[in-house]
């Protein structure tokens, strides 16, 4: 997650005018599957050997449990992120920074047109508690929802242990820059971050730093590409350098972004190595709009009114650039945040 933001003036946008739901239940483990089920408002969640089921008053949505867990993992790790996290075309969450909408079909053109959509609103920390309980209980031993498919086992079957070490990883949030004294450390073999096999040709040399006495804390540099080559997770942007609210959130990507991220603000991608293809859809309806293919050195902005999902055939390095200004939710609420970052 790349979040730095908190609401600046305490006023939280609520465009649907929904009341806060306060019903949360964690049910005992099922006698057959061994998995717990969960309730948040009128949403009910359960899983079996292959699928996750999301029951709502308007219908039940079924997802392959591997897809569901990978998406749930990002929603948890990113703290609901900026804007909308679409688990798929039907189910997801929209972040209002302190409160969150959970929806079924609301951002699907067909469901919404036929009145088959359903939305409830929660305090973010309360819904997060349920989500964390779910990712912990439903992730079994050997399956890591942060890892690329070739790197991990499968989530299929009845309850068999857990993988809490994997699902409770602490996100990296440098306060100024990775490697500075007292800030997030660089990754090494010794601290548990070996070079990923797909990046074993990436130079691991550190820069030459020649600081005069007394300036050792300010004359600083580190090997960013080497750092990224040692990431043990995929599709998990983490803050590596900070200029006020400008957050460099590079990440390593492989296979498919497990969610369709619906932007509520402009978001920039800088492809540092290899390539990613992005499928772009309309944020509200899910209609396909474009395909953006990025190679090393390419820079592209995701407009604020779209959703996007990336496909990375080989592990690649992507710089996700976020503006975490606490002023932005207010600008979005007032319709003053632009959909396009630059007009030319």
């Amino acid at each position: 997650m790349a979040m730095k933001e908190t609401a600046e003036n305490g006023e939280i946008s609520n465009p649907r005018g929904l009341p806060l739901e306060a019903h949360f239940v964690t049910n005992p483990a099922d006698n057959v599957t061994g998995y717990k089920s969960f309730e948040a408002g009128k949403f009910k969640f359960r899983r079996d050997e292959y699928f996750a089921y999301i029951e709502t008053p308007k219908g039940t949505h079924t997802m392959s449990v591997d897809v569901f867990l990978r998406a749930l993992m990002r929603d948890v790790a990113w703290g609901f992120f900026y804007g909308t996290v679409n688990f798929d075309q039907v189910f997801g969450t929209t972040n209002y920074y302190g409160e969150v909408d959970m929806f079924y079909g609301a951002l699907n053109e067909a469901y919404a047109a036929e009145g088959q959509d359903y939305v409830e609103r929660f305090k973010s920390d309360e819904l997060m508690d349920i989500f964390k309980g779910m990712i912990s209980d439903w992730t079994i031993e050997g399956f890591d929802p942060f890892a690329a498919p070739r790197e991990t086992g499968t989530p299929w079957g009845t309850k068999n242990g857990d993988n809490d070490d994997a699902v409770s990883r602490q996100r990296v949030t440098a306060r100024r820059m990775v490697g500075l004294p007292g800030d997030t450390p660089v990754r090494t073999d010794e601290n548990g971050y070996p070079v990923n096999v797909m990046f074993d040709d990436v130079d691991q040399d550190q820069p030459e730093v020649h600081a005069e006495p007394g300036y050792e804390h300010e004359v600083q540099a580190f090997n960013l590409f080497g750092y990224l080559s040692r990431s043990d997770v995929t599709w998990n942007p983490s803050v590596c350098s900070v200029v006020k609210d400008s957050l460099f959130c590079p990440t390593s990507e492989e296979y498919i972004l497990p969610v369709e991220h619906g932007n509520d603000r402009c978001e920039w991608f800088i492809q540092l190595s290899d390539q990613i293809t992005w499928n772009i859809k309309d944020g509200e309806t899910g209609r396909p709009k474009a395909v953006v293919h990025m190679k090393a050195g390419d820079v592209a902005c995701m407009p604020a009114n779209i959703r996007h999902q990336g496909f990375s055939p080989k592990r690649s390095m992507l710089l996700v650039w976020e503006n975490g200004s606490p002023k932005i939710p207010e600008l979005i609420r007032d319709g003053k945040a632009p959909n396009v970052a630059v007009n030319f």
Partner: protein
Amino acid sequence: MSQYTTDFAQIDEYDSGGITVISQDNPKNYVFSNMYEVAAKSGANERVAVAKNFEYAIESMRAEGTSPWYTAAHDEFAVAMDYPVTVEFVKLDDPDAVVDPESEGAHLIDGDPVGEKMGYVKLSRGHMAMLPVGSAYRFVANKAATVMIQTIDGPVTQHKWAQFCKQ
């Protein structure tokens, strides 16, 4: 020998992707460019914006020879994207006299900065250096190199979107 090869690009060898519109979209909305192409087609030590988010910017700089001295009223960060670059630092005796402490972005320093030498860093591809607030810095590159700079849109930031972005 690994079965995998990581594809990087450089100022003298790059290949850009592209945008395929499916429906009701405009390629210009993606402000799509390639930072190596921008550096390749820029003048020595020009700093050209390739991304902008409200006041914040990312610049692609063609580092070549010895750049002028710069300073800013906030931290900046530079990443060497292809060939070696050295960054030299001076601790300004009176940074507020050089640049308004409320100002944003990098500013050119007229002549040499007044202050104590802080040291230097030698960067190769993928290395990130902090350009700390209160310092002056300059880049030295024996051959043209691409440097990506995390900063705020300022007086040295060039805007050439129509020249470099896909339309």
